[in-house]
């Protein structure tokens, strides 16, 4: 891919981010500006900012890559990301804003009057935030590597530096402008190339094999395998091999591989005939975003799909960077309307990744073998249109991808730094907030350099599963149930979130190779969410004496419309 346009595009996005942030800095004066933009952000600006923050690397590149590799089942991801906002709106949005707290730990303390629960919630926020920052940094590294061949960690480093600079300098007020700007940038960066790509597809005679399963090659295509991989075949496959397969060397030999798993050495050139089925590489040897837990999906697709649905539907409300945003609305009614606008904005955005996924299946099916499936969005313009036009569109997409990493990473850093400043560092105040920002970013950056090959989609899935089984019960029961007690909340978070965390960590460490136990651990939401709720309810019922004394007054504050509320406080 030609990087002479892409690198300036990425640089432009980075510079524009810093400039818009600096503009926010000029009007960011008070501490309240810093943390919550003085709670005066109107629904439209706020909705664009929330959407800009929410559409991460996983949305921008990951979905198209996942769909390319694993087919339409993966479209549940964007559906879940969107529906999660609907569930958030139904149960949480307005009361959360009216609670008057700033972070999830603030909410826990206000609702339960317990410092221990606050600490625990803070620990979960930092954990989930770091888990979610990791894929952003790795995605940035991947993008820059695909575009320029730069070393893997460089992209992550750039994102980390820019984010720390903008967040530490301007706080929430400047971030709001940055993110609103980046939503529109991301939408443009996917929409404009998509229009051209669809036109190119039309003029190509509008082939429709993309929707067939499995994907097939439309024309004869040669693929160079850059990393050694295992190829799993459900049917015998005829192809021309130039290199080493299953330990035997072939020199431009046409052969038929029988059903089963085949080991392809790196540097091998495979030539597929027209109409041949696109084989699937066996599990993530490459650490890209699209190699998530593929094995367990094939074994128990229904279980995995429902696990995914539950995790994304209920996990959204507990993501730290999502929650913080609600405190910037002026009042509860605005918080609700903002959420509806967000649903519209992200719903519109998510119409686009499937288009890239489908076109990727048509025009770049070999990406599933080279392990660069996440780069499908970046490579398609070049592949389908080519020339200067293709390069320019590719540059636009690359700029949008960087906007995606920057905006989500800023939001997460903001949230994690807020918790670190308030609960870990010795004194509060803007200077310590800046220190917290650096801390919030250094840990995931170090992890991304050290861990390197962690499958990115797994990290995202883990963040959603942990959030769904810890924060979702805390928020829903905290807002709607009068008998919640501090011990109940703590136990529920520990048992639900903790077990989800252990389950996915065990899967990532490769603990149980296959079987139903593997599926159970890889997609924990289906059992860990009910477990979290159940523990929270049962322990609360067992400790009725510990119901905080001010519960009734606090619930009144959560639910009463603002016009009645001034008197309640007085």
């Amino acid at each position, binding site marked *: 891919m030609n990087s002479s346009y892409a690198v300036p595009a990425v640089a432009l996005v980075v510079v524009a981010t810093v400039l818009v942030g600096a503009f926010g800095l000029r009007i960011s004066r008070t501490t309240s500006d810093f943390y919550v933009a003085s709670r005066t952000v109107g629904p439209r600006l706020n909705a664009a900012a929330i959407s800009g923050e929410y559409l991460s690397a996983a949305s921008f590149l990951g979905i198209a890559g996942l769909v390319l590799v694993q*087919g*339409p*089942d993966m*479209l*549940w991801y964007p*559906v879940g990301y*969107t*529906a999660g*906002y*609907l*569930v958030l*709106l*139904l*149960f949480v949005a*307005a009361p959360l804003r009216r609670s008057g707290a700033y972070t999830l730990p603030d909410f826990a303390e206000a609702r339960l009057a317990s410092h221990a629960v606050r600490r625990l919630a803070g620990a979960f926020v930092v954990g989930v935030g770091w888990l979610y920052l990791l894929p952003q940094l790795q995605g940035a590294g991947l993008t820059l590597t695909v575009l320029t061949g730069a070393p893997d960690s460089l992209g992550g480093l750039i994102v980390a530096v820019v984010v720390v600079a903008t967040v530490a300098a301007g706080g929430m007020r400047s971030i709001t402008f940055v993110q609103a700007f980046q939503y529109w940038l991301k939408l443009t960066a996917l929409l404009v190339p998509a229009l051209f790509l669809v036109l190119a597809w039309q003029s190509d005679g509008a082939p429709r094999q993309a*929707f*067939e*399963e499995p994907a097939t090659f439309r024309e004869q295509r040669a693929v160079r395998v850059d990393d050694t991989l295992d190829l799993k075949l459900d049917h015998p496959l005829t192809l021309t091999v130039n290199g080493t397969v299953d330990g035997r060397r072939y020199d431009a030999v046409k052969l038929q591989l029988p059903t089963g798993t085949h080991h392809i050495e790196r540097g091998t050139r495979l030539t597929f005939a027209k109409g041949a089925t696109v084989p699937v590489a066996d599990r993530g040897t490459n650490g890209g975003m699209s190699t998530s837990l593929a094995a367990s999906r094939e074994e128990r*697709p*229904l279980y995995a*799909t*429902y696990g995914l*649905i539950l995790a994304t539907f209920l996990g959204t409300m507990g993501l730290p960077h999502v929650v913080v945003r609600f405190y910037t609305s002026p009042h509860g*009614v605005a918080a*609700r*309307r903002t*959420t*509806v606008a967000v*649903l*519209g904005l992200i*719903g*519109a955005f*998510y*119409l686009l990744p*499937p*288009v890239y996924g*489908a076109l990727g299946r048509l025009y770049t099916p070999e990406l599933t073998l080279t392990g660069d499936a996440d780069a499908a969005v970046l490579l398609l313009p070049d592949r389908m249109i080519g020339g200067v036009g293709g390069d320019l569109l590719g540059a636009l997409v690359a700029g949008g991808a960087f906007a995606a990493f920057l905006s989500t990473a800023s939001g997460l850093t903001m949230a994690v730094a807020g918790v670190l400043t308030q609960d870990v560092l010795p004194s509060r105040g803007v200077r310590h907030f800046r220190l917290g920002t650096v801390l919030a970013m250094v840990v995931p950056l170090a992890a991304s350099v050290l861990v390197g090959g962690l499958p990115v989609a797994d990290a995202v899935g883990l963040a959603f599963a942990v959030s769904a089984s810890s924060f979702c019960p805390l928020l829903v029961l905290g807002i*709607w149930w009068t008998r919640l007690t501090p011990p109940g909340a703590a136990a529920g978070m520990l048992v639900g979130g903790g077990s989800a965390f252990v389950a996915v960590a065990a899967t990532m460490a490769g603990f149980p190779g296959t079987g139903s136990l593997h599926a159970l651990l890889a997609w924990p939401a289906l059992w860990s969410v009910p477990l979290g709720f159940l523990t929270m309810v049962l322990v609360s019922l067992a400790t009725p004496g510990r119901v905080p004394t001010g519960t*009734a*007054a606090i*619930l*009144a504050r959560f*639910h*009463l*419309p603002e*016009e*009645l509320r001034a*008197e*309640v406080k*007085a």
Partner: protein
Amino acid sequence: MPQDPTERRVVVTGPPRRTRRASGYSRPRTEIDEQTTLGHTYVRSLMRTQLRAALTVFAVLVLLVGPLPLVFAATPDSHRLEWLVLGFCLYAPLVLLALWYVRRAERNERDFVRLVEDR
């Protein structure tokens, strides 16, 4: 004024005056403000109506989305349908559900304010 020995302080009784109502304050509002048991009952009733609204919309969401994986699994040849539904057809209903809920929730709140302010 000379003191008249026969002048005494007398208690005049009569029907109680509705001072609170006259000053524009109504009873439910005060009950809520003073956090009496009755006031809490008002708040609980608001919570119940809001929760009912949320659960209704949530039930529709579950009915809309829940059976889809089963449908796709039961008809393995329906890949085109799966692409169409998951890729492009679910977002508009989600936004409509959100709009419906917001209208209901805001109406509930308006009704509640009218009730407690006695307008």
